[in-house]
């Protein structure tokens, strides 16, 4: 009896197994399709309601931007290439910006993209009902008007070297379709029904938690672009599963390969591994209100005790740079004459002794006035590399007589503890914008004011320099002040600056002309094409 059942079951499984090569029906052979693996789903199809970076990146190929910020921030403040705005000019006093739009640009429903869309987008960007993360664009605007169908004039209250960058951060959304939805109700609207693309791609299908399918927007202004027929985002909630599918050939592109898996990708003949600086630095933020850490000698000693080169070799397989100060070494504004504390455990021990921390009882931990030199070293449990860093830093500190206890908690908990300053030391990471903005993290905020200055750093000279810097309309003039701020912060060591990390991405070798960079993995998705050559 059961042998019959077994036979049927085996037959059924064999039939199903024969249904394909494990990848299903797939695209027609003459179609240029790229499959991108994504760890998360799109949060909202309205770019102003996004709180996720993946959503930002994805919607940047659906909703147009006025210009494309280039990744040349190493050499000078970033430059821009025309996008929806084919040209722009500034008035003599530097307070008025005139933008001329592409005459042929159309929304995916065939309606032309006009100055009204730009005016509408800049207006909603600053709305308090929305609370968009780049809403500060509105603060400096005094007037936005549509001069004619394709010309927009924007007036600013003061000269700001980043004015264009701020305006350009604003995605352009369809006024004709979204204008009648009161902004106060935007959070209640199902935007997946209202996607009207103006960028290179339009959304043709979105199955939550499964896939997103994009096809070319016929109204895109660049002739013969995009060059792909279809882009499919497959949503896979586990990084391991994503990597498996990448290696099996089920997906063509994956962003954010863990450094430990880089070798697997590099060894695959069908994949290219791309590595680029991710514009972030990982550091230990000290709570300067925690007794032992109030003393700059202790902070310098801790910095000298940590072998950052060994850390880069072990945690990042050598694929990372040393971080020395608050401005990334890849930025035009980096002060390359900084003198960060060298790795010198013996000097660290002497400095700690000088500060009064001595291991009198011989238990391996220094003490002063009966208190042991110990601290909790917190790291987010979601981040493997930061946990490894916490362990390595703790071991290095142990060698100079400091007991650091690594503890791993959820990211949300870590943030809550940082904000309430209920911590001693946290392995944290800042992702830096391409503009030099030092106020949020380094200016001593008024007590109780929301701030990213988790360390509680307060140096009146730094405060003054930051305020002075912000009053200067020109980045070259700011340069000297930025240099000085970096020197002061490196002297004070409110952070243990560790590493500037890199991001890894894997691409199928059949994808051509992809420029995957720190601005977005889909930076030039409209230029990607696939080679049919084997």
């Amino acid at each position, binding site marked *: 009896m059961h042998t019959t059942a077994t036979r049927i079951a085996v037959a059924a499984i064999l039939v199903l197994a024969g249904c394909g090569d494990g990848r299903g*029906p797939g695209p027609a052979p003459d179609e240029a399709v790229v499959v991108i693996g994504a760890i998360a789903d799109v949060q909202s199809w309205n770019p102003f309601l996004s709180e996720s970076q993946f959503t930002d990146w994805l919607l940047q190929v659906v909703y147009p931007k006025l210009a494309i910020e280039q990744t040349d921030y190493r050499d000078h403040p970033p430059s821009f290439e025309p996008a929806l705005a084919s040209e722009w000019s500034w008035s003599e006093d530097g307070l008025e910006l005139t933008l001329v739009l592409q005459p042929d640009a159309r929304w995916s429903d065939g309606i032309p993209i006009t100055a009204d869309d730009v005016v509408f987008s800049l207006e909603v960007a600053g709305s308090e009902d929305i609370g968009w993360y780049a809403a500060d664009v509105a603060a400096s605007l005094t007037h936005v008007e549509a001069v004619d169908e394709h010309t927009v004039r924007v007036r600013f209250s003061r000269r700001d070297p980043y004015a264009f960058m701020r305006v350009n951060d604003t995605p352009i959304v369809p006024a004709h379709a979204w204008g009648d939805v009161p902004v106060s109700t935007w959070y209640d609207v199902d935007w997946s029904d209202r996607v009207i693309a103006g960028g290179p791609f339009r959304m043709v299908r979105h199955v939550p938690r499964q896939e997103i399918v994009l096809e070319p927007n016929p109204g895109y202004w660049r002739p013969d672009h995009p060059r792909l027929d279809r882009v499919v985002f497959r949503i896979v909630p586990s990084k391991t599963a994503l990597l498996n599918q990448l290696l*099996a050939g089920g997906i063509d592109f994956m962003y954010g390969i863990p450094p430990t898996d880089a070798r697997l990708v590099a060894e695959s003949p069908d994949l290219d591994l791309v590595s680029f600086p991710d514009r972030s630095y990982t550091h230990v933020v000290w709570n300067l209100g925690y007794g032992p850490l109030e003393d700059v000698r202790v902070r310098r000693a801790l910095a000298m005790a940590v072998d950052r080169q060994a850390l880069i070799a072990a945690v990042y397989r050598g694929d990372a740079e040393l971080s020395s100060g608050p401005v990334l070494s890849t930025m035009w504004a980096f002060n390359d004459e900084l003198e960060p504390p060298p790795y010198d455990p013996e000097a660290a021990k002497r400095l700690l002794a000088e500060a009064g921390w001595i291991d009198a009882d011989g238990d391996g931990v220094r003490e002063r006035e009966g208190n042991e030199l110990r601290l909790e070293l917190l790291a987010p449990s979601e981040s493997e590399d930061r946990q490894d860093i916490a362990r390595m830093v703790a071991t290095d500190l142990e060698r100079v007589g400091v007991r650091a206890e690594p503890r791993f908690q959820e990211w949300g908990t870590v943030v809550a503890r940082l904000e309430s300053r209920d911590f001693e030391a946290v392995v944290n990471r800042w992702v830096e914008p391409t503009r030099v903005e030092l106020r949020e993290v380094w200016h001593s905020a008024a007590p109780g004011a929301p701030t*990213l200055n988790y360390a509680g750093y307060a140096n009146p000279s730094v405060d003054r320099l930051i305020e002075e810097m912000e009053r200067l309309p020109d980045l070259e003039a700011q340069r000297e002040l930025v240099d000085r701020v970096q020197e002061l912060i490196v002297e004070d060591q409110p952070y243990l600056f560790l590493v500037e990390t890199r991001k890894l991405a894997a691409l199928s070798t059949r994808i051509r002309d992809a420029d995957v960079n720190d601005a977005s993995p889909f930076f030039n998705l409209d230029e990607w094409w696939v080679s049919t050559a084997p």
Partner: protein
Amino acid sequence: MGVDRTVTRQILRRLAMLVPTVWLVATLTFVVVQAVPGSYADAIDHPRMTPAMRDAVRTRWGLDRPVHEQYALWLRAIATGDLGTSYVTRRPVSETLARALPPTLLLAGTALALDLLLGVLLAVAAARRPYGRVDRLLTVLGLGLYGLPSFWVAGLAVLVFAVGLGWFPASHMYSIGADRLAAGHRFVDLLHHLVLPACCLGVVGAAGTARYLRASLLDLRDARFVTGLRARGIPERRITWLHTLRPALAPVVTLLGLSLPVLVGGSVVIESIFSWPGMGNVLLTAAQARDVPVIMAITVLGATAVVVGNLVADVAYAIVDPRAREAE
């Protein structure tokens, strides 16, 4: 007749306990979720989030209110059947769950059927000659499989059958481009995607089912009615399938009843490994993002399923094994 009344009373008593039990579980979950420092606003991992924006998010969702107020609001909403709005998608939670339930039912239902079918076959095969070669082999394999963590089994299955042999897809419910297939082909595509996750859930389950069933089959081997049947010259196979299997199934029925929560709650591990868009997948992402309304809704649903599952198990137990009725 009297027996039926006992069963009915049992059912009614269990049903009366449903609401307080679910309330207790949900309240405990609420307390645990709130006891962890930080909230959805803190868990947002966007490089441009500032403390002021996190404050705005807290205000928008009422996360800045005292916990007892948040609890009262949640309780009032849930009492009227309002599951709330997801912080992440800003869509009604009911909409998310309504979309996630069918895939979970399909996957868990298939797995359960496989569990039962395979479990019975293996148990009968093992019990035919206790401590014989087949039995010992099945014991070793079964215990080994039952003891392995499911993420490991699933990972291995993907590596062998999807990555290595390429027989089955490694994830998702449908292939790329399946939306353009005819309904019949689309269904086959779905079955094709169902095989690996359903087997990972079902085969491991079957190993457990077979262990229990084998034990109860062996218990009945020397029962007086079995000896009587044997004396009448009825073949062993007929005795097993027609006479001992039903009473032996009693403990298995309890096991199956207890697996009802997985049926509606989904398997977090299997669904996330196979990118299956079900309840387990939803729960995992909600927990990572501290999307409390979604976590609470799934908890309430899961707790209800546990209570109902227990009830179903008891009733079914009473049906397969008359002794359970008399015990009342």
